[in-house]
């Protein structure tokens, strides 16, 4: 569904992405992990067309995304830190997004209901806590029932209850056969839902494997341990 081909990105002297190629298919729930500054967010933004690569190209359903924007109708994106116009209320933001996106008929308001934001609709964005803002971002990402969900640190800043609601939601979307791409540094949270892991380091993809494959190779039961094991192995080689 999404194909990243030989993408490099340079900011000044700093090379953030080094010739990255990655294929993500329908029905997968991919966790993208790696230390801070390894290029996860940049890679996501490349896919979204927000960062324009120095070299290489990305294909969405086989079509290059260069100078395209309509493909984003099929993507729901939840940024790491969502910031919205200060003077708008939650209700206005949601309404605005509905205005911007054309696909109105198939709205998914489940998160909105579960997060119980109904009472806060009149609140202005600048008065919201970080957690509530994250909830708004999550609602918006799922609202239009997109085929692809890209979630940048989705649970960071959410309280445990909300976090659980969101995870449930992710699971149910995954069940519908959607492609879900999540970045997170908290591995334990993702254990039960992810199907693939992309591990990034210094602008390179260290590995991209299915969960089962990884666990089999390392002989571990838990993903976090498996990764640690794998990393030790590669460092020793």
């Amino acid at each position, binding site marked *: 569904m999404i194909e990243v081909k030989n993408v490099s*990105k340079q*900011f000044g002297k700093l090379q953030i992405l080094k010739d990255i190629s990655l294929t993500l298919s329908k029905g997968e729930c991919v966790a993208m992990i790696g230390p801070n500054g390894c290029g996860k967010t940049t890679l996501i*933004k490349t896919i*979204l*067309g*927000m*960062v*324009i690569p120095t070299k290489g190209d990305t294909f969405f359903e086989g079509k290059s995304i260069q100078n395209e*924007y*309509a*493909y*984003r*109708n099929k*993507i729901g*994106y939840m*940024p790491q*830190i*969502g*910031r*919205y*116009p*200060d*003077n*708008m209320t939650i209700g206005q933001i949601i309404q*605005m*997004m509905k*205005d*911007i*996106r*054309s696909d109105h008929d198939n709205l998914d308001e489940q998160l909105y209901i579960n997060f119980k934001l109904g009472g806060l609709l009149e609140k202005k964005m600048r008065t919201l806590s970080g957690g509530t803002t994250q909830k708004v971002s999550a609602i918006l990402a799922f609202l239009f029932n997109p085929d692809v969900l890209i979630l940048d640190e989705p649970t960071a800043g959410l309280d445990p209850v909300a976090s659980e609601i969101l995870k449930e939601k992710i699971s149910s979307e995954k069940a519908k056969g959607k492609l879900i791409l999540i970045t997170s540094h908290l591995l334990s949270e993702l254990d039960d839902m992810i199907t693939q892991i992309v591990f990034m380091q210094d602008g390179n993809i260290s590995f991209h494997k299915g969960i089962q494959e990884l666990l089999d190779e390392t002989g571990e039961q838990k993903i976090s341990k498996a990764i640690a094991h794998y990393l030790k192995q590669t460092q020793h080689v």
Partner: protein
Amino acid sequence: MFKITKIVLLDILKSKFVLFYTLLLFVMSWSVFNLEDNYAKGILSLLNLILLTIPLVSIMFSTSYLYNSSEFVELLLGQPLKRSRIWISFYAGLSLALTLAFLVGTGIPVLIYAFSTVGIMMIVIGVLITIVFISLAMLCSILTRDKAKGIGLSIVLWLFFALLFDGIVLFLLFQLSDYPIEKMMIGVSALNPIDLSRILILLHLDQSALMGYSGAIFKDFFGTTSGMIVSLSALCAWAIAPFLISLKRFNKKDL
């Protein structure tokens, strides 16, 4: 297209700052017309005030608004929207909001106290100057990611057009005083939207008589319909060119 413009416009109109700006302009205009005994003098004093305030407020407010909206821009970029459309919407939204503030704050007093050709021209020029400095603000905000640097740059630009440019002109005038440079100076003045506006208004207030021979030459140019069209076009170019450059950069910008 208009959806985002509307959002930006409403967002700005709701902020206290624009209300304050409108009030400031209104109080300024109103008091100027009440202090001066005839409208031409009122226009003249108001000219000085607005040529100082409008550029400063337009460029500073817009630059900081654009930096504060960077996450919002990011949010929009994640949506199925064309990049240029987003940037154009911001330009339109800012321009509409500040123009509205100017029209209410200064336009209404001018129409009440100084309804005349010069009064209307003053309003047109005020609107153009507003948009010119918004356009420059968009350029500033796209040139650097750092908000402090961007705002610094916008202050420097304002200072340049409001003050330094005239210093350079003065220097040139004295360096080249042996040559007939009046015609050249017309061209030079087009390089500064503030000077261009000032001269246009002055010449229509019959202040050209004070300018003697040079004034006659300026009037020959600025006073004619074609000269007016050329100078207003120059102002429009100032309103558009920096924005177009910023648009080109925005289309390639990483967010």
